[in-house]
């Protein structure tokens, strides 16, 4: 690996200069081989990653995620059965019940972190990646991708997943818990979104946008 990197270095004199986002140290990054990551020399932050076929992979996981997100919200996630009564639970019904119980703020927190932000992340990512793939970047691509970057940490589906597990175990003794179709879709959705995060390379996207900016001037 090391020898390969040296070889690369000599071949590509024009390397990429970057400042570390965590400690501001300027350093030049050699051209990375596929699946290589560049770390800061001083504080060990990840500076750059290079993944093979990142655009296609992230696009496919984003589309998969979008479909699964739709299914996950269509049917109940879990159904509770006790005393011949049943109660369905979906992501949206959870937010709605909180609203009905005069807890509007808590309901809004639920609605945004488990529905609106994840939905925007998936829709926006598919849109931006398709624009790049089909060479149709426009003036709104950069603000949209910026928005996606800022709202990313507020989508908390994987935390909801853990919460569902805890709830199921807690209620297991008291009532019969039935897993819905949506729960399986939901599990796969978490997997798709994790892989999307892993394969999405913001650096490549900004590079495409930079190129568009240059061409349109």
């Amino acid at each position, binding site marked *: 690996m090391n020898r390969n990197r040296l070889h690369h270095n000599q071949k590509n004199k024009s390397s990429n*200069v*970057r*400042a570390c*986002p*965590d*400690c*501001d*140290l*300027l*350093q030049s990054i050699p051209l990375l081989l596929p699946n290589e990551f560049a770390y800061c*020399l*001083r*504080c*060990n*932050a990840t500076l750059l990653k290079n993944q093979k076929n990142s655009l296609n992979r992230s696009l496919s996981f984003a589309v998969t995620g979008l479909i699964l997100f739709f299914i996950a919200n269509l049917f109940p996630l*879990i159904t*509770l059965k*006790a*005393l011949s*009564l049943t*109660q369905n*639970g979906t992501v949206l*019904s*959870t*937010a709605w*019940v*909180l609203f009905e*119980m005069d*807890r509007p*703020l*808590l309901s809004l*927190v*639920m609605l945004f*972190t*488990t529905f609106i932000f994840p939905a925007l992340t998936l829709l926006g990512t598919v849109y931006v990646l398709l624009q790049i793939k089909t060479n149709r970047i426009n003036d709104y691509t*950069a*603000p949209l*991708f*910026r928005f996606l*970057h800022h709202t990313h*940490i507020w989508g*908390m589906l994987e*935390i*909801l997943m*853990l*919460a*569902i597990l*805890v*709830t199921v*175990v*807690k*209620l297991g003794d008291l*009532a019969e818990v039935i897993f819905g179709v949506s729960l399986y879709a939901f599990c796969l959705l978490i997997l798709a979104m994790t892989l999307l995060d892993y394969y999405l390379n*913001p*650096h490549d996207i*900004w590079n495409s*946008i*930079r190129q568009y*900016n240059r061409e349109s001037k």
Partner: protein
Amino acid sequence: MKTARESKLISCHLCHTLSRLPQDTGYTVTKGDKKIKCSCCQSILHSRYPDSISRTWALLIAAFILYIPANTLPIMSVNYWGEIQSDTILSGVMHLLHEGMWPLALLIFIASIFIPIFKLATLFLLLISIQLKLVYRPKDRTTLYRITEFIGRWSMVDVFVIALLVALVQFGSTASIRPELGALSFASVVILTMFAAHTFDPRLIWDVINTNEK
């Protein structure tokens, strides 16, 4: 080696494009009255986050204050055959322990008690270490910051569990669960500390460290 600021450059916090830092300015980057924007992504550029320390302090103190009602007020009340029982975060964990569900108790303990305290303490110490201009183990302090930023959101687990329990256990007068004010206070603590971690600028840890030393 030099930092971007020493070389009169600014790195965009979002797309990492390097731009020239106009002369005679410190932290705020303005050209005349106008704020300078990144040529690539149009973000407003700043060499360090504006007022990072005071903003983080404000959010952190707000979180500290809300942490008190979050732990003393009940987070939910369970109505079982007309008998109403209220639980705080700590009593909820104790209940789980008494029922023998210790893995669950451990999980809730870590997410709802350990992580918030860890986060508040870490940010508090980091802020003080920057204000005292300490040069002590900057790499470890940066790692500590990264951990804080990463684990913070997982505290929301308890809030989500309450929301799910409330939505599922609605059997009229036999059994129902209501969310109480403690849950909202706790959610606010988590959200405020997430914002605090976000406004904190780890580059301030490194500003007092001479780049030529290493």
